[in-house]
């Protein structure tokens, strides 16, 4: 147990040692003295001399080195970001270092606490409020070129206290994926496509046979929440949580109804890690996932024929889906705010966003890119259609714990051991307690 205990002590001490580093970082006050242990690369304008005549005039600085910290889904994303930042660097006469974080949240926090954050970074919807409340995040959302063109539903995710902190870099939405072979085998046609709850239920029941389950979707608020929205519900209204509304309950009860009928199962119940895995293996005839499933299917299950249709409308015809987005955050401590904003403007331009979409399957956050995206990726039309009415995740700090607590009970919907009303009441109580 010696080994285990030592490691556990390390774990406990982690908080502490992190602080020790940050204490070191704070004592070296000037921005030029970046301590190596924070992992942030140097932001020193050491290249000014090499850059020749000092950048005179112009909106952008020249000869500076920016560091960009990203959390990457793989080589495709890393290379795309590196290429894009290099292109900006070549255009403006600056240099960009891309740091790929293994655990973005943790590395970013450490770098910020240490006093030498990367200039630009991926900001998550769940994490930006924490950064904002500590004044670690510069308010740049409105500063980028043509910022009004960004989908308002995405911009609102990164807005708090009336400040639009950072520009969404891209987004994904949920849609229904259908295995076309299983669909036709079950005798279903285009007329049966799940455009409403009733049709979804009918199709899922018909598709459930033998080892196949009609619908397999993640046991998460980030999936089932779509049903609450379709029932006319919401997560928040006027800054207050509304999980205890009758509409939210109706949405969750619909999910329970499907689960009790065996038409809906959760990935763990069928031995899969996530909906896409069950779908790819042919255990699920339908799943509800976001754009990321396109790349996964191409890579892991290239033989499966499928199509993507929009989420069904609720009983009153309300359309609803969820969006997932990240932003380009700019550190408040960055010494090159103008260059940072210029870089973010470049990265969020229509052309760049389309090339990102091409490289790693995300959707442009600009409305101006919508038409081009739809023609380029017709199979993803259902995802981009959801952009207008998609609802973002809750960004209140501490909500992930509350959400986890709610999700612990989701599996119990199938056998009735969890009561939707009690689950939502609990969710409401715990969320409201976050203040």
């Amino acid at each position: 147990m010696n080994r285990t205990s030592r490691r556990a002590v390390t774990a406990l001490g982690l908080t502490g040692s992190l602080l020790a580093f940050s204490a070191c970082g704070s004592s070296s006050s000037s921005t030029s003295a970046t301590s190596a242990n924070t992992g942030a690369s140097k932001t020193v304008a050491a290249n000014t001399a090499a850059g020749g005549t000092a950048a005179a005039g112009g909106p952008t600085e020249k000869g500076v080195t920016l560091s960009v910290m990203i959390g990457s889904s793989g080589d495709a994303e890393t290379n795309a970001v590196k290429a894009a930042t290099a292109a900006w660097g070549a255009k403006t006469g600056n240099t960009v270092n891309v740091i790929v974080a293994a655990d973005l949240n943790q590395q970013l926090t450490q770098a910020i606490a240490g006093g030498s954050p990367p200039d630009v970074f991926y900001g998550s919807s769940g994490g930006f409020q924490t950064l904002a409340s500590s004044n670690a995040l510069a308010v740049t959302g409105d500063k980028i070129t043509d910022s009004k063109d960004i989908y308002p539903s995405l911009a609102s995710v990164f807005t708090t206290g009336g400040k639009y902190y950072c520009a969404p870099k891209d987004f994904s939405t949920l849609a229904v994926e259908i295995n076309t072979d299983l669909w036709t085998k079950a005798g279903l046609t285009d007329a049966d496509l799940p455009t409403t709850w009733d049709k979804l239920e009918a199709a899922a029941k018909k598709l459930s046979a033998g080892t196949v389950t009609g619908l397999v979707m993640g046991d998460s608020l980030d999936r089932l929440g779509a049903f609450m929205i379709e029932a006319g519900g919401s997560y928040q209204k006027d800054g207050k949580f509304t999980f205890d509304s009758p509409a939210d309950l109706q949405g969750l009860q619909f999910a329970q109804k499907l689960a009790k009928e065996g038409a809906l199962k959760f990935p763990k119940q069928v031995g899969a890690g996530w909906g896409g895995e069950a779908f790819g293996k042919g255990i699920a005839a339908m799943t509800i996932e976001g754009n990321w499933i396109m790349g996964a299917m191409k890579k892991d299950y290239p033989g499966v024929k499928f199509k993507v249709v929009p989420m069904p409308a609720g009983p009153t015809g309300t359309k609803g889906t969820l969006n997932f987005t990240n932003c380009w955050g700019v550190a408040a401590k960055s010494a090159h705010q103008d260059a940072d904003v210029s870089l973010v403007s470049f990265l969020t331009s229509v052309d760049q966003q389309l090339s990102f979409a091409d490289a790693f399957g995300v959707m442009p956050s600009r409305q101006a890119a919508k038409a081009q995206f739809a023609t380029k990726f017709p199979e993803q039309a259902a995802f981009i259609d959801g952009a207008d009415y998609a609802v973002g995740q809750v960004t209140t700090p501490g909500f992930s714990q509350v959400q986890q607590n709610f999700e612990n009970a989701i599996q119990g919907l199938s056998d009735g051991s969890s009561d939707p009303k009690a689950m939502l009441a609990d969710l409401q109580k715990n969320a409201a307690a976050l203040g």
Partner: protein
Amino acid sequence: MTTSTATTIDVPPTESDRQKRRRLIREERKLNGRQGIAGWLFVSPALIGLLVFLVIPIIVALYISFTNWNGASNPLGGSAKWIGLDNYKKLLTSDSLTRTNFFRSVRNNFYFVLFVVPAQTLLALLLAVLVHQKALKGRGFYRTAFYFPSVTSSIAITLVFIFLFQGTGAVNKLLDLVGVKGPNWLQDQRGLFHQLLRVFGVDSSPGWGKHTLMGLHLWDWLSGPSTSMCVIIILAVWTTSGTFMLMFLAALQNIPEDVMEASQIDGATTRQRFWRVTVPMLRPTIAFVIMLGTIGTWQVFDQILLAGKTNPTMSTPAYLTYQLSFQNSAFGTGAAMAFLLFMLIIVLTVIQRRFLKEKI
């Protein structure tokens, strides 16, 4: 830096004598002082290491536990505010989700300790006695084999266990062969005691079980380890018994031959020799192993991080500390929880020492 006091002299010293003595003392002091400096220099690497990586972090962490630091600023100053005992209150007195999660994790960890410590101690002792046998051929091989799990990365072992105990994994395939349908091990949140009670027809909480204690129903307090936790219990017993086997082995080799021979001459049987001679001679080691085991099992972390992220019946205080701090940015509450765990371990260790009444 103690200076040797001069021996008492009967004759009052002359002026020059006194001066001489003073000079001597001064020189000795100087020499001692120099030695002192050298001493400090020699221990300084270790001392600085301890200070920087242990003492200062612990002090800062203690400070953090009284603030609402969220990790996104400098904890000393910055936007972190001193909030007194609020973090501790949140964990102990207020009816909050954080408290429920904390006490649930304490329950999980308690059952983990309750099962792992006796099992690993007994298994380690058994293995040590087995490989200590002179008659055993290839003792070296067995020693290595039993010790092997302890030197293998716990991450690797946990991953292997996750595969073995999947719903469609090897363990369930084996159980299928004998006609038993295995549970979905790592997802199964049913408590062991609850399942046993079910056999006797008790499948839901009686009236008194509905009372809550620290946010958890009494009935849930008595759940026993969940099926998923049992997997980690098996894993922990298997990996750590090798380490403790080595300790027992060393202690066994320290038992003097003559004591054994004397008991043999006195006509003690093998069993009597084990229980009446070997075990009493091993008592200090047993106490030591139990104590180390308890401290270590209260800090189980990496197995949970890998296998029990989304399973509330597997979370432990050590894991929850990490999760609160790094996933929820509540470093203050996380630090407070770490100190509560620290105090819990201290208290248990003190109780154990008294109970085992052994000086180590």
